């Protein structure tokens, strides 16, 4: 992913790529976004490092998944990082009703002007 100077453009491009890959045929392709320092908390389950994170993301308890993101907020986090907060609906398997979710990504600049995920937090939103 090339770096552009506008954080909103970067955020939008990143999310499009992330969710298309997550929802698509080969979720394993997310692996290059994570490294040993990456941290993920997925509905309370904590994982550190690319291996543990990808193990979790490829063994979630649904077969089909579609993220329908509704809002995106991007802020620089300092030291070249970007904070992205997304809210939207997630549809799993053949469910008609989406479940509300929020997700935080903290992206850091890597080599070749690309970004990698330093922090990821995912939560479903229900009472």
């Amino acid at each position, binding site marked *: 992913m090339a770096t552009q100077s506008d954080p909103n453009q970067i955020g939008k491009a990143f999310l499009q790529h992330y969710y298309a890959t997550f929802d698509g045929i080969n979720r394993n392709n997310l692996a290059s976004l994570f490294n040993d320092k990456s941290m993920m908390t997925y509905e*309370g389950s*904590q994982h*550190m490092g690319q291996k543990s994170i990808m193990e979790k993301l490829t063994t979630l308890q649904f077969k089909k998944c579609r993220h329908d993101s509704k809002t995106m907020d991007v802020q620089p986090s300092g030291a070249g990082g970007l*904070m992205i907060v997304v809210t939207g609906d997630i549809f799993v398997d053949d469910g008609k009703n989406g479940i509300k979710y*929020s997700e*935080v990504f*903290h992206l850091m600049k890597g080599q070749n002007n690309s970004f990698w995920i*330093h*922090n990821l937090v995912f939560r479903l939103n229900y*009472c």
Partner: protein
Amino acid sequence: VRCSASKKHVNNWKTMANNGPDINQIGKAFVEHYYNQFDNNRRALASLFQDSSMLSFENEGYQGQKKIMEKLCNGVKFNKIQHVPKTLDCQPSGQGGLLVMVTGQLKVDQEKNPLLYSEMFHLLPTDKALKQFWVQNCIFRLNTAY
């Protein structure tokens, strides 16, 4: 509050530095303090923000203590607000700071049904003792259409 610090996983990043303070405790204490002030003594939040602090509040962006406090004290449409956090997730942000993600309910004015919200804080320590933090980034979103 559903915390992500289950005993099994808590050692992954319990400490920000070796043998440092427990980040889950820091996050919990911060959130309790922030919402207590927000709901009951909003002006007292000012000390948590600095010139470089950023707030995104329902699609509007504000930078700096002054503009942020103006929004929070005078620009929020509800008069009475009570935050009821339900989930709390904390991670070190890799910049010496703490990323805190909250989801929960917002009881506003006379509304019978609480609204759902999510809020992300990126906290930085004011000193090496890691006892006080300020808010570098804050992003607030309602999850219920209002």
